[in-house]
């Protein structure tokens, strides 16, 4: 599964994109896996209320299913306009 990071999440984790092999059933499960990997992930995912997530390029919630998902993206609240 492709995992993408944007803005300060990208900077904290250090890469814009990586391929993650996972059996995670939900976004929260995936976050737990990543947190357990390395300190930089734990730091980036410390406060989920400061993060947003998109699955297959659609905004969703952290309890969303990852079944069939090809791309997950994590980023801070958007500041367009």
């Amino acid at each position, binding site marked *: 599964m492709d995992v*993408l990071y*944007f*803005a*300060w999440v*990208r900077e904290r984790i250090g890469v814009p994109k990586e391929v993650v092999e996972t059996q995670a059933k939900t976004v929260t499960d995936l976050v737990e896996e990543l947190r357990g990997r390395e300190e930089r992930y734990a730091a980036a995912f410390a406060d989920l209320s400061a993060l947003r997530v*998109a699955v297959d*390029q*659609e*905004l969703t919630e952290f309890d969303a299913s990852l079944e069939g998902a090809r*791309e997950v*993206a994590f*980023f*801070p*609240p*958007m*500041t*367009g*306009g």
Partner: protein
Amino acid sequence: MKIAVQSEPFDLGAEASAFASGHRDMGAIVTFTGVVRDLARGDLDRMVIEHYPGMTLKALEKIANEARDRWSLGDVLVIHRYGDLAPGEMIMMVATASPHRKDAFEAAEFLMDYLKSRAPFWKKEITSDGADWVAAKDEDEDALNRW
């Protein structure tokens, strides 16, 4: 309907003229243009706008189509830039055309409220002191509740 995501500058005058022309049934045209503001200290070097290429256009189309569902609109325009912008440069614009001014205004405000908080753009301000990601404002999230 025109939706564009681009690093290049756009010409507000040319876009507004092209958008407004040739609508015999649209009595009301509203445009909103966002401009990079300098910081209070006057030391903004530039603003960098990051986006999510795979998602951005789809998110903007979804927002524009939602506006067309809710209001009587003859046409909608959305242009949003990414990359490096200097103070005073135009970041983005929206335009709406409707038979009625209330629809044109409301739809433009709706587009802006959703662009602010639901389109995948992130702004970073660069000064000689360093770089800061612009924080989302509670009031921008709250603005969505009125629709």
